[in-house]
């Protein structure tokens, strides 16, 4: 420690972190690398032995040479550790020049050790005492600790920046395809997990792997190749989304969750135009979805529909969208001229007014449009042409049920919203929105129509939500006022903020997390306000730009950070070069 006093005084935080790893690692440094390899082998070996006496705990971990779900995760961890170790020294060392293998191994080692400790504790708690933990689990734990200690003994080397890595483009495309395949099968696998604890562990492990790869610099490279092969990525993502129902083989439970996620994500993407692009805080966005849903219900073939006219569904979609957009114009035009805070308050109130109004338009206090609190029930399934969305179909021997039908339709809606989002973002209008976010007065002084652009974002967002709402009415079968409470608006906003304002991928991830977790985990459903609240507080503290950061938003959140600004500029220059090449 005396050797690095001057460093410690200038970079107190950094030096402490480094010295802690080094202090642990110094004694093992000479044989650190074999230690990591041995640890990985021991970790994997332990996974093939039984971990507990009973088969009741964490799925089934009691059979030798038949690894259960949690054990499979640790085998993946062991494989990753071996790959990173061979990057550090050995056959993959050329890859190791680009990726920070030692840092990744440290993160991975620490993560697996904590993970194993957690698993052992869980077995102990759930099976009634640590006696029930079989040697296999202890062996794996020792393996994890060996990886951790060995990784501490490795020296993190200054590697080349993965930003400037140039691989043959077939390899880059292959990587994208492989990643998308992992997403598809990962999603199918995760949705099939029945046990809540195992599900949480899988989610935790996914986070660990993602963090490890981030620290290794892998995602920097993925970001660049995603930019260069945008078409491939887009087609691939569409293919994955399209293929997902075929992995479910008629299971309605998962498809129901998937459609709900899709409705939620589409709405959040619409909100992202308002919040993420135009920078307007809308706390009543759910009302626009509700307006669309009510329009969809009122023009439906339900016996309780209040309007006699039954037009073509495409007409209803447009109608619902227009009604929503009109509401948006009415709310937006007086409030958008003043500062942003007013908009937040007015939209908050508007959301409540909408709910109350829908609860009262029952023929007593006003015209009979919504049947009051009873809402409009028994909305029949959609019928477009001769295709009935309630019917089950067989495609290539795979059953696609009612929810799969809606899933495909919602996929189209989501695709429309994403297209609108990205194209507006990369246009004259998008530049205007950024300028408004940066400095509204200066934007106005440069001739940007600030009021018009804000109003357009607001009404446009409402338009898209109304469109999604008309489909939601048929999907949900009934429309009632209590589906459109303020909390729903708050969750939509949370999905945008958590995922990353101004990004498509981020909001998709955020919406999936926020919708999937309560569906799969009882305790999250019971304490969802507490848990999501905590999650948001933590995000605001440690990563205000969201899980997937839009570069521009990241810069806005870190105005003082010059290193970040240089980095973003460097990435931008590389992207420009790639685009030209």
């Amino acid at each position, binding site marked *: 420690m005396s050797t690095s006093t001057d460093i410690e005084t200038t970079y107190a935080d950094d030096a402490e972190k480094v010295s802690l790893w080094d202090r642990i690692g110094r004694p093992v440094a000479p044989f650190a690398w074999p230690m990591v390899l041995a640890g990985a082998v021991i970790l994997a070996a332990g996974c093939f032995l039984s971990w507990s006496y009973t088969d009741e705990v964490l799925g089934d971990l009691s059979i030798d040479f038949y690894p259960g779900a949690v054990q499979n995760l640790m085998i993946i961890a062991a494989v990753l550790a071996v790959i990173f170790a061979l990057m550090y020294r050995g056959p993959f060392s050329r890859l190791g020049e680009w990726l920070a293998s030692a840092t990744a191994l440290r993160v991975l080692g620490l993560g697996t050790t904590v993970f194993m400790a957690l698993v052992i504790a869980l077995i102990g708690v759930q099976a009634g005492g640590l006696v029930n933990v079989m040697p296999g689990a202890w062996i794996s734990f020792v393996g994890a600790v060996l990886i951790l200690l060995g990784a501490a003994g490795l020296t993190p080397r200054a590697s080349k920046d993965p930003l400037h890595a140039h691989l043959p483009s077939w390899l880059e495309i292959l990587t994208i395809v492989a990643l998308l395949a992992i997403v598809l099968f990962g999603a199918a696998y995760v949705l099939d997990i029945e046990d809540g604890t195992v599900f949480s562990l899988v989610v935790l492990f996914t986070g660990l792997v993602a963090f490890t790869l981030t620290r290794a610099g892998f995602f920097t490279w993925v970001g660049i190749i995603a930019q260069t092969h945008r078409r491939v990525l887009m087609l691939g993502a569409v293919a994955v989304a399209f293929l997902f129902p075929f992995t479910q083989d008629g299971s309605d439970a998962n498809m129901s969750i998937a459609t709900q996620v899709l409705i939620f994500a589409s709405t959040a993407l619409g909100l992202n135009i308002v919040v993420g692009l135009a920078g307007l805080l809308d706390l009543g966005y759910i009302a626009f979805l509700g307006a669309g849903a009510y329009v969809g219900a009122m023009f439906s073939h339900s016996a309780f529909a209040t309007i006699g006219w039954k037009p073509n569904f495409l007409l209803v979609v447009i109608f619902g969208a227009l009604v929503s957009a009109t509401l948006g114009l009415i709310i937006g035009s007086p409030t958008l001229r003043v500062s942003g805070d007013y908009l937040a308050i007015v939209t908050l109130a508007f959301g409540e007014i909408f709910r109350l109004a829908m609860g009262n338009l029952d023929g007593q206090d006003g015209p009979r449009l919504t049947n009051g609190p009873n809402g409009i029930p028994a909305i029949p399934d959609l019928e477009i042409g001769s295709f009935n969305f309630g019917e089950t179909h067989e495609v290539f021997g795979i059953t696609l049920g009612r929810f799969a039908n809606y899933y495909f339709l919602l996929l189209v809606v989501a695709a429309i919203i994403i297209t609108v989002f990205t194209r507006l973002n990369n246009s004259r209008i998008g530049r205007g929105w950024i300028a408004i976010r940066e400095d509204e007065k200066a934007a106005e*002084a440069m*001739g940007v129509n600030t009021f018009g652009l804000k109003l357009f974002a607001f009404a446009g967002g409402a338009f898209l939500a109304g469109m999604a709402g008309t489909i939601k009415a048929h999907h949900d079968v009934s429309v009632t006022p209590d589906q459109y409470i303020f909390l729903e608006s708050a969750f939509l906003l949370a999905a945008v903020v958590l995922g990353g304002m101004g990004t498509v991928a981020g909001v998709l991830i955020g919406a999936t997390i926020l919708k999937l977790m309560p569906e799969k985990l009882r305790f999250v459903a019971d304490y969802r306000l507490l848990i999501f609240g905590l999650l948001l507080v933590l995000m605001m503290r440690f990563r205000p730009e969201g899980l997937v950061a839009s570069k*521009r938003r990241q810069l806005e959140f870190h105005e003082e950070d010059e290193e970040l600004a240089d980095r973003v500029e460097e990435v931008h220059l590389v992207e420009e070069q790639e685009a030209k090449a």
Partner: protein
Amino acid sequence: MTAVDETIRTDRPDDGPVLEATGVTMRFGGLTAVNNVGMTVRPGEILGLIGPNGAGKTTFFNCLTGMYKPTEGRVRLLGNDLPPKPRAVVMAGMARTFQNIRLFGNMTALENVMVGRYCRTSSMALTSILRGPKFRREERETRARAQELLEFVGLGKSSEHLARNMPYGDQRRLEIARALATEPKLLLLDEPTAGMNPRETQQASDLIFRIRDSGLAVVVIEHDMRFIFNLCDRVLCLVNGQVLVEGTPGEVQSDPRVIEAYIGGAADDEEGDA
């Protein structure tokens, strides 16, 4: 001054004044920041606006550009009355830069200038979403024009750099490029050389001359007297919100009232420096 007023009255659009502000007054409560100021800018001239700190120069700029709604007075650009709305002013052909640089820091230099093109382009939502040929053409032209302007101010190589990463002098020039992108007939520069070293100041003068030669009229607020008297065709001195003197640099420079009110203290310093 009366002679100038006489030429305005004839109101000939071809060689009439670019800007004609009369009786502009701005009061904030009891404080009169700008008091009955008139200013005329003729085509192709560089007009300097000088005055001690707090004389109301920037407030006057804000009145001209619609950032403030003047309490009294009237502003005419190319013979048309200007409404006190910043956007309308830009559309009519008057653009400005700011005393404290107000770039869009997290956008690249090129994007900053492209924002300046906003009011001269017209792609709306549907064209932007459908990406038809009109959109592509306009986007291409916007980009090309912005790059041209960056090269004009000498930032052609920095187009992909983030505005906030650029050196101070470059940021000032970028602001000018952004203002030029709005295709103004008249450019208002608020202290374009503040914080610049002598070499950069020289470059700024050259740039302003080139802007004038491209057919624009320019009004410059500046404290650097050597810069102003070298650059301007006419100089207007503002003191306590009122016009003290207006004339050629020579006239203003030697006017005892200006020396009294403004250069008095500073003149000693300048002599000391020299």
